[in-house]
């Protein structure tokens, strides 16, 4: 049983450029953590590194799942170990039907020892389950027959990500702006669904700019990341403060990190 995901003094570079500069974070299953920060602070990077994106190089520190390092594991092994990421910009896979993709993914994640070519979960069982989950998310059944994210609207993509979260039932999920690009109704639906599917059950690391998602999924902890470092950790009132007032206080209080963050932004553009 995966219970604790721990990030220890994590330093990460991409193409020789440092992005994360010593991140510490401990996420216990059942807890919700909000990860907030201005653009370029390293929020998405942290999510992608936890998931195992090959472009990022960990130069120092570790990521531990129940005390075991996962740094040497590929993204597929991490997924099978119970880690999930809902992507900010999910990829389209033309020609691959949502249902086939999900069935394969669900099989692999539920049977982590499955070898390539071994049977997938029975079609009937899978169909029943996916149909239930889709109706919960108010998704048209036709959705399952469409190609993965191919020609999806922003809202459809985000809902498809939540559907995958619902099917894969990970222990830990990183939600990278799963509420962005949606209208008010869609944000409410997404927030409620995440609450039903994961809040209080999974360890959630929520990256968001909006307050709606966190209002439905109140975080035990809020982390503020700036210049590749977590500079402050608080409760849900910290998230509320940042939503209301922005990052001005944080920048003033942590001028060094703010300078790094702004430097990064200059380099990035």
């Amino acid at each position, binding site marked *: 049983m995966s219970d604790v995901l721990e990030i220890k003094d994590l330093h990460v570079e991409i193409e020789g450029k440092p992005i994360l500069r010593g991140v510490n974070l401990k996420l216990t299953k059942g807890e919700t953590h909000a990860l907030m920060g201005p653009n370029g602070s390293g929020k998405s990077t942290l999510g992608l590194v936890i998931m195992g994106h090959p472009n990022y190089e960990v130069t120092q520190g570790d990521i531990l799942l129940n005390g075991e390092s996962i740094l040497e594991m590929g993204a597929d092994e991490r997924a099978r170990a119970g880690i*999930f990421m809902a992507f900010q910009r999910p990829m389209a896979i033309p*020609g691959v039907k949502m249902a086939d993709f999900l069935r394969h993914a669900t099989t692999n994640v539920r049977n982590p020892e499955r070898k390539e070519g071994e049977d997938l979960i029975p079609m009937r069982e899978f169909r029943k389950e996916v149909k239930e989950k889709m109706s919960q998310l108010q998704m048209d059944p036709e959705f399952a027959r469409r190609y993965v994210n191919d020609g999806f609207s922003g809202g459809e993509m985000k809902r498809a990500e939540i559907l995958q979260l619902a099917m894969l039932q990970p222990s830990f999920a990183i939600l990278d702006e799963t509420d962005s690009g949606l209208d008010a109704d869609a944000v409410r639906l997404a927030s409620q669904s995440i609450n039903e599917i994961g809040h209080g059950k999974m360890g959630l690391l929520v990256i968001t700019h909006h307050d709606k998602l966190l209002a439905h999924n109140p975080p035990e902890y809020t982390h503020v990341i700036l210049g590749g470092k977590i500079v402050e950790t608080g409760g849900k009132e910290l998230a509320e403060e940042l939503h209301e007032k922005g990052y001005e206080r944080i920048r003033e209080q942590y001028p060094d990190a703010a300078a790094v963050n702004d430097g990064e932004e200059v380099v990035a553009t």
Partner: protein
Amino acid sequence: MTTATTEKMTFTDEGFQSLLSSITEPAWLTDQRKTAWNNFNDLPWPSNKDEEWMRTDIRLFKLDKFALGGSAATAASENVLADGVEVAASLKFQNGQCTVGQTLDQKWIDKGVIFGNLAELANEHGELIEKYLNKLVEPSIDRFSALHAATWTSGTFLYVPRNVIIEQPFHTSAVMSDGGCDFGHTLVVIEEGGEATLLAESASDAPESSGLHCGAIEVYVADRANLRYVNLQDWSQKVWHFAHQKSTVGRDANLQWTVGALGSRLAKVNQHVDLTGEGAQSHVNGVMFTENKQHLSYHTLQRHVAPHCISDFLYKAALQDSSRTVWRGMIAVDKDAQKTDGFQRNDNLLLSAKARADSIPGLEILADDVRCTHGSTSGRVDEELIFYAMARGFTRKEAIRAIVIGFFQQVFDRVTIPSVRDALGDAIARRVREYE
């Protein structure tokens, strides 16, 4: 025509004479052969100075390594296209020698349907066959077409009379053994209002078997007729494959032609569809999957002769290792072919840094009121796609396989025969290996 000898015959005047004396056939056919043999002797081998052969090097091809009338293959021929499908009739070819598999039901014979070995049927239905044979693919096109027309000894003849509609597909499978030759000729005639499906596949008996296929396909789809035609070639990577394939499609007629090109060391195929009757339609679906040092060169021509016709050619290729594909497509629209809809597309997925795909689309339009589009793409598998699938628990190999099969899905979506879709999908899934 019947072949009497199993002696090896070489591609010399002497060999040609002994081929002629070994077969019994109508005089017009022998005359055709003689003219074609003269063409063969007169024409040079194509060289890389010819625009069409610039990218396809055949200097290592030596005809004298092969002989006509090679020994029959011992291996059973494949049946992947019609797996689990009840066929109307079937033929099997082993190194070009034909045997009948499933015979045609008497009720179809009574209606005038003809299906069998072209060489034998040339004696029985000489007048009919003479009208069509070597009229679309002229022996004088190049040295390969001449060689084929002079020395072919077996093939498929399918004739569907006026308004006869056959639901069950016809099936042919050809197998070549080491050093084998297959000069098969396919002649399909669907008369006005007729409908049929022909599934043709070819393979080698072993991965190490060398061979030569020098073939021709002629397909006549008359007014209001409908033909679904599938070619799947999965020869060994030691087989030379040269072919001219041409079809003519009449008024309001429909040709759906699916090509699966997986095998051969080097393939040079010219595929040509003429839309000759108003409202004719032709959909061509091509799937290529190459590996090692394979070289597959497909030259397609979709020619609009009559107005209001639709042609839609889609070729997709995935390339592994240092394999190479050449696709050269042309939409030609004659002056009178107004209101033409002509589409051609070629997409290539490079699965290795050493693979190379050349894509040369072209348009020659003489009419002024047409809608023609062409396009091509070549690229590698997007690593972000692989990561996305892996983040969902797919292994890297599973992710690539899913992406590659998805890449071809657009072609499969156009194939209306489930057994063919499955066969092509399986063949491709088997080929996908580790991807660096």
